[in-house]
């Protein structure tokens, strides 16, 4: 019998970073910016949070950490770090009209390098004498769950056993979906992504929308990195541990056909596919497990192909995705 009660929470915990990443990237792509820097931004978000928490824990000592500050400082650092990355991307692609693919890839190179560098050298640079970055005090605040989750059996395990960032991810995704679909701001944003010329002619400030959507998107994606470090790995940084989740988040955007509300369940599905290989009966060939890890990408390609074959207008990528906008060109 397949053990759903232990499988679902793990799938959800795998899915949450992807959900943050894909919600952020959806907002960004809706403004016409294909930000391939998301993997880098998630690394920067994670390491900024770690640096904030590390400095704080070192300065006051892990024993007398204040609960509010322990959450607020990493959160603020993470948002600031990923905001700056988003700003850099916007400055290069919107203001300086650089090629988005190249800028995004450079941002990923930089971001992943930044994360691994400070993850590996933070202790040496700050001159402290701890052997590894272990932020268990901070992490315990991020992982705190509702007190009733332990006493409600399978229900508590499946629905209530997560830290607050997990619920925040779902809320952000639903709010983003609402804003995109039902508000004027969302309409303007979609107009910018579909046809910046038309939007500009209608009096929408294209540059401002692109900047805002991309920076906010980056900040949301950065939270995914923070969640991974503070909650999933219990505050332990190890080099390259975050892996290719950033690219998976970009895949998820396609999979959800640019709808953050679909992303909530889809991210859990992806999380499930990501760890499915651990749940297939042991004793099977180890090699086959590697093939299982392919599933999220195969599924994404199938969705991409099917949506392009059916060619329904509401399921297409934003029409100006990846193209810089310059008013004097047409």
């Amino acid at each position, binding site marked *: 019998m397949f053990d759903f009660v232990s499988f679902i929470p793990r799938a959800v915990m795998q899915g949450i970073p992807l959900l943050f990443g894909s919600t952020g990237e959806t907002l960004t792509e809706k403004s016409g910016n294909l930000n391939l820097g998301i993997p880098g931004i998630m690394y920067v978000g994670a390491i900024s949070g770690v640096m904030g928490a590390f400095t704080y824990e070192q300065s006051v000592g892990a024993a007398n950490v204040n609960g509010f500050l322990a959450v607020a400082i990493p959160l603020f650092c993470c948002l600031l770090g990923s905001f700056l990355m988003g700003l850099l991307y916007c400055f290069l692609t919107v203001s300086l009209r*650089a090629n988005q693919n*190249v800028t995004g890839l450079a941002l990923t190179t930089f971001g992943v390098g930044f*994360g691994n560098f400070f993850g590996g050298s933070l202790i040496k640079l700050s001159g402290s004498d701890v052997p590894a970055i272990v932020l268990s005090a901070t992490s315990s605040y991020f992982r705190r769950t509702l007190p009733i989750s332990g006493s409600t059996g399978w229900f508590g395990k499946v629905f209530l056993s997560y830290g607050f960032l997990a619920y925040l991810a779902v809320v952000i995704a639903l709010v983003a979906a609402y804003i995109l679909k039902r508000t004027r701001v969302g309409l303007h944003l979609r107009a910018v992504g579909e046809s910046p010329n038309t939007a500009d002619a209608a009096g929408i400030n294209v540059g401002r929308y692109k900047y805002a959507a991309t920076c906010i998107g980056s900040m949301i994606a950065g939270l995914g990195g923070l969640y991974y470090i503070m909650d999933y790995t219990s505050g332990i940084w190890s080099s390259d541990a975050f892996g290719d989740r950033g690219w998976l988040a970009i895949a998820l955007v396609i999979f959800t056909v640019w709808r953050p509300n679909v992303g909530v369940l889809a991210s859990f599905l992806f999380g499930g596919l990501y760890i499915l290989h651990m749940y297939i009966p042991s004793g099977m060939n180890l090699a086959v497990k590697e093939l299982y890890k392919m599933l999220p990408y195969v599924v994404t390609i199938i969705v991409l192909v099917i949506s392009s074959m059916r060619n329904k207008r509401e399921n297409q990528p934003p029409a100006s995705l990846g193209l810089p906008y*310059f008013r004097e060109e047409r």
Partner: protein
Amino acid sequence: MNNRAHNPLFHVSRRAALPWYRAWGIRAGALIIALLAGALITNLITGLNPLEVYATIWQGSFGSARRTWVLFQNIAMLLCVSLAITPAFRMRCWNLGGDGQMLIGCLATTACMILLGGKLPNWAVILCMLVSSVLAGAIWAAIPAIFKARWNTNETLFTLMMNYIATQLVAYYIIIWEVPKGAGKIGIINQSTQAGWLPQIGSYKYLLNILVVAVVCFLMYIYLNYSKHGYEIAVVGESERTARYVGIKVDRVIIRTMFLSGAVCGLAGMLLVGGTEHTLTTTITSGRGFTAVMVSWLAKFNPIWMVLTSFLLVFLERGAGQIATSFGLSASYADILTGMILFFIIGSEFFINYEIKFRHAAGKGE
């Protein structure tokens, strides 16, 4: 009636083509500023004085004969992948799957070495390696191309996903072929017989790869600039509608070009496994497919300039790696420095393509 209030401080307009020496002057300027900024950051982190930073970077690349060879080997591999994706890029078809196409080429090469090594004469094994790796890479690139040509499926995202499928496929075969069982890695293939190892020229392990890539570079330059195919690629890249109007079969050009693109990536994979590494890991390409995008773009898709840009990136990477080693810092320092320099160069393109006219300057003209 107050015009002044609506007059912005500056105004951006597209430049007419700059003479090439001014364009490269701007790029060189950006590079120098970037290097200064890089040295400043290094100075803040390590306390090394900027001149020593440059000396260390130089040491890391040219410090010994071995390092110089490794430098040129790395340049050759990066250049080969960059050359591979360039035809697709000229067509505005964003092939981000260079990594996967190279990896699948590596896999095909490894398969030949393991399964055929010792059973066929060495030249036949090498021939099989060449054919199978080129075909594998080409097919890996042709799959997204067919969907792009037929249904206009987004090729950026498709090729990106294909990278990870290739990675998992390699992971699968690594476990099947692992030596010894349970080790999770293949180790050096055919260590004793050297079956399927590409021949060495004299005592220089890396020379063959470098020569092959030099030839590929030259051929690619001719293909892109002086052949009918190259012309068709340029037309499709500039305007698909024009291409269709003058009777170019756009979907055929897309599939053909991507096929070529993948084939050269597969070749790069064979050179890497058969020529130098003689093993297979999931990270053997070390992200070259992505770095290649930047190499190709920085050189404006010109194969000859690409020699220079790939040199620059590899030089920095090895130099920054040296700084990291000698100061006990994480090797990722190279990525930070590379990323920073890329930002400056990417930004500098703006000043080549556009000019900024300030208000007072514009006022005089009226």
